[in-house]
C-alpha cells in the first residue's frame, strides 16, 4: 500500500497541471460551501440575538412579523401608532415590570432614529441577555435640560466618525426624499459598544425630543408659516401623544399569555402583543428559505467540481493505458489499479478541501472586519464547527466516491487490455 501511495503521488504530480485545476475547483467549492455555511450560521445568530429579555412587544394591530420587523429590525413602517394613554395603561398592569416605548420614523443619514426613554438603556437586552454598554460618553438624560441629546450605535459612530460632542441634525422620514429637522440640531452624548444587532445602526434620542421636533409639523410636513425655534420648545408640553411600539418586561414570565390576552382585548384601541422568540422563529422560517437555497446552490457547485474531477481523470485514462499496462506487468493487479485511482482521487480531493478550508480561513480573517462594519455580520475566525466538519467530511467522501468511477473504468480497461493495451 505504501508503494502504491508513492506511485499514486508521483503519477499525480506528473499530471500536476491538469490536476491542480481540479484541486482549485474543489477548493473553490469548499470555500463557497464553508463561506455560505459560516455566513448562514452567523446570520442566524445575529438574527436571533437581535432582541432578548423582552417578554412582549406591543404595537398597533398588524401582522406579528411586521411588528417584529419594524420594532426590532427597523424595517418597514407601522401602519398605526399606539396612543400614549395605552402605553401608560400597560405600565400600570399589575403583571408588568417595565415598559420601554419606541418611536420610529425619523432618520439620520440613512440610519434609523429611535426615540425612547432612558429605561431603554436599562432594560433592553440582546444576544444572551446582554445589556447595552457604552463605548464612550453617557446615555441621554431625562428632562428638558437634556432634550437634544443623542446616543448613537457603533456602526453609526464608526461609519460617520462620530464621537461625543458631535452635532447632528435629523431628517423626517426614512427614505431618500427626506425633509429636514435642520433647525433643531442634536448633540451626540454617547456611543454604544458593538452588539451585532440593529442597535448598532440606530440613533437613539428621547421621546420628548421626538415630540419637540414635530411641534411645528402636521400630517408629516412642516406647518406653513409656523416655526418654533429650538430654544422655545421647552415651553410646550412635550409628553408624547403616541409611540410606534413598546417593549414590555414582566414581573413573572408565566403571566406572558395572560398579559398578551389583556393587550389584545384592550378596550381603548386595537393592539397586539407578540412574543419576540416566537415571532423571530416565524420570521426565520421565511428568511431561512433563501438561506437554504444558498446552501443548496453551493452544494451544486461542489457537485459540478466533483464532476470536473471525474471527467478530467476519465479523459486522461486513455493516455494512461500504457502506464496501467506497465504497472500490471510489474505485478500490480487490477485491484491495485483501482486503488491507485481511488488514492489519486483522495489526494486531489484532500488537497482541494484543504486549500478551500485555508482560503475560507484567510477570507474570514481578511474580510471579517469589513463585513462587520458594512453588514453588521460578526464573522470571527474560529475552529470549524461540527456542521462545518460534517460538510468537509461530506466533500471528502463525495470526492473519493466520485474518483471510484474512473477507478472502475481503469479496472475494466486493465482487465481487458492485459499486458498489451490496444491504443
Amino acid at each position, binding site marked *: 500500500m505504501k*508503494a502504491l501511495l508513492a*506511485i499514486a503521488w*508521483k*503519477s499525480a504530480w506528473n499530471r500536476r497541471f491538469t490536476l491542480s485545476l481540479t484541486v482549485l475547483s474543489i477548493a473553490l467549492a469548499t470555500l463557497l460551501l464553508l463561506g455560505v455555511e459560516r455566513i448562514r450560521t452567523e446570520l442566524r445568530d445575529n438574527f436571533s440575538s437581535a432582541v432578548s429579555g423582552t417578554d412582549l412587544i406591543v404595537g398597533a394591530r398588524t401582522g406579528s412579523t411586521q411588528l417584529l420587523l419594524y420594532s426590532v429590525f427597523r424595517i418597514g413602517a407601522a401602519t398605526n401608532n399606539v396612543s400614549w394613554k395605552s402605553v401608560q395603561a400597560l405600565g400600570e398592569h399589575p403583571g408588568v415590570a417595565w415598559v420601554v416605548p419606541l418611536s420610529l420614523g425619523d432618520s439620520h443619514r440613512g440610519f434609523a432614529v429611535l426615540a425612547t426613554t432612558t429605561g431603554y438603556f436599562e432594560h433592553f437586552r440582546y444576544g444572551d441577555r446582554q445589556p447595552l454598554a457604552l463605548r464612550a460618553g453617557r446615555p441621554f438624560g431625562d428632562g428638558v435640560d437634556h432634550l437634544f441629546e443623542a446616543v448613537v450605535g457603533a456602526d453609526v459612530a464608526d461609519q460617520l466618525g462620530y464621537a461625543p460632542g458631535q452635532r447632528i441634525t435629523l431628517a423626517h422620514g426614512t427614505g431618500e426624499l427626506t425633509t429636514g429637522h435642520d433647525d433643531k440640531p442634536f448633540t451626540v452624548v454617547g456611543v454604544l459598544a458593538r452588539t451585532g444587532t440593529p442597535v448598532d445602526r440606530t440613533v437613539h434620542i428621547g421621546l420628548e425630543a421626538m415630540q419637540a421636533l414635530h411641534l411645528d409639523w402636521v400630517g408629516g410636513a412642516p406647518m406653513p408659516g409656523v416655526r418654533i425655534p429650538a430654544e422655545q420648545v421647552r415651553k410646550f408640553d412635550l409628553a408624547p401623544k403616541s409611540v410606534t411600539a413598546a417593549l414590555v418586561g414582566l414581573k413573572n414570565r408565566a403571566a406572558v399569555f395572560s398579559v398578551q390576552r389583556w393587550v389584545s382585548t384592550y378596550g381603548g384601541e386595537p393592539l397586539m402583543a407578540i412574543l419576540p422568540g416566537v415571532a423571530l422563529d416565524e420570521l426565520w422560517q421565511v428568511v431561512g428559505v433563501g438561506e437554504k437555497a444558498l446552501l443548496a446552490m453551493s452544494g451544486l457547485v461542489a457537485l459540478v467540481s466533483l464532476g470536473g474531477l471525474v471527467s478530467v481523470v476519465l479523459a486522461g485514462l486513455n493516455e494512461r493505458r500504457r502506464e496501467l499496462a*506497465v504497472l500490471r506487468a510489474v505485478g500490480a493487479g487490477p485491484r491495485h489499479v483501482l486503488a491507485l485511482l481511488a488514492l489519486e482521487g483522495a489526494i486531489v480531493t484532500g488537497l482541494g478541501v484543504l486549500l478551500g478550508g485555508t482560503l475560507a480561513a484567510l477570507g474570514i480573517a481578511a474580510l471579517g472586519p469589513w463585513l462587520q462594519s458594512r453588514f453588521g455580520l460578526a464573522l470571527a475566525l474560529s475552529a470549524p464547527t461540527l456542521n462545518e466538519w460534517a460538510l468537509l467530511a461530506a466533500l471528502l467522501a463525495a470526492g473519493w466516491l466520485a474518483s471510484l468511477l474512473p477507478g472502475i473504468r481503469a479496472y475494466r480497461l486493465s482487465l481487458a487490455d492485459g*499486458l*498489451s493495451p490496444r491504443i
Partner: protein
Amino acid sequence: MSAPAVLQARALRFAWPGAPAPCIDIAQFEVAAGEAVFLHGPSGCGKSTLLSLLAGVLVADAGSVQLLGQDWRTLPAAARDRRRVAHVGYIFQQFNLLPYLSVIDNVLLPCRFSRARRSPDARAQAEQLLARMGLDAALWPRSALQLSVGQQQRVAAARALIGRPEVVIADEPTSALDEDRREAFLDVLLSACEANGSALVFVSHDRRIAGRFSRQVLLPAINRAAAPQGTHA
C-alpha cells in the same frame, strides 16, 4: 531438451470472446530453463495472444499452460497476478517506463509489488543490472523520459531481470531501435539472461536476428489456427 521446462503449453486453444474461430490452437510448445527462444511470424498470427496466455494474463479455453509446473487456469486472478510478477519479467515494444519515476525506481518496480522479486540487496542488484546494460551511473537518478529509446529498452530489460525471474518475455523489444542499437540491445539482453539463468521468450517479426537465439519457432508452423493464413514475412 535436457533441462526441465519452465513454460509448457499442451493442446492449447483460445478464442477471443465473440470471435467465431479460435486464434490459438497449439498442440505443444515448451520453453526449457535458461533457453533463449525466438518466436516469430507475421502480424496477426497470434503472437501477442500467445504471450498473454504464457504470462497468465489470458486463460486458455481448453488445454493447459503451465508455468513451472503450475497451470494458470487453476489459479484465481489475483493469484495469477502474484505468480506472474514472481516468475516472469516482461518487456514491451516501447514505452516500458513510468515517466514519473527515476531510472533506478523503474527497475525496482517489480520489487515493490512482489515479495519473490524483492531482496535486501535489490538496489545493488538493480545497479549491477543497469551497469551490465551499459547505462552510466549518472543516468540512474534521472527521469526515465530523459533517456533515448534504446536506453529506455535497456532499463526495461534490467527491470525484467531484477529478482532473477525464471522467464523473461520480450514482445518485439527491438522494433523501435535502429540496427546498431538492436544488436547492442540483443548483446546485453542475451548475456544478462544467461548470467541470470532466465529463460527468454523473444517475439519478433524481424528474422534477421533469429540466428542469435538458441532456438527459433515459427508461430504459424505450430499454431494451427493461424495456418490457413498461409504466407509469412
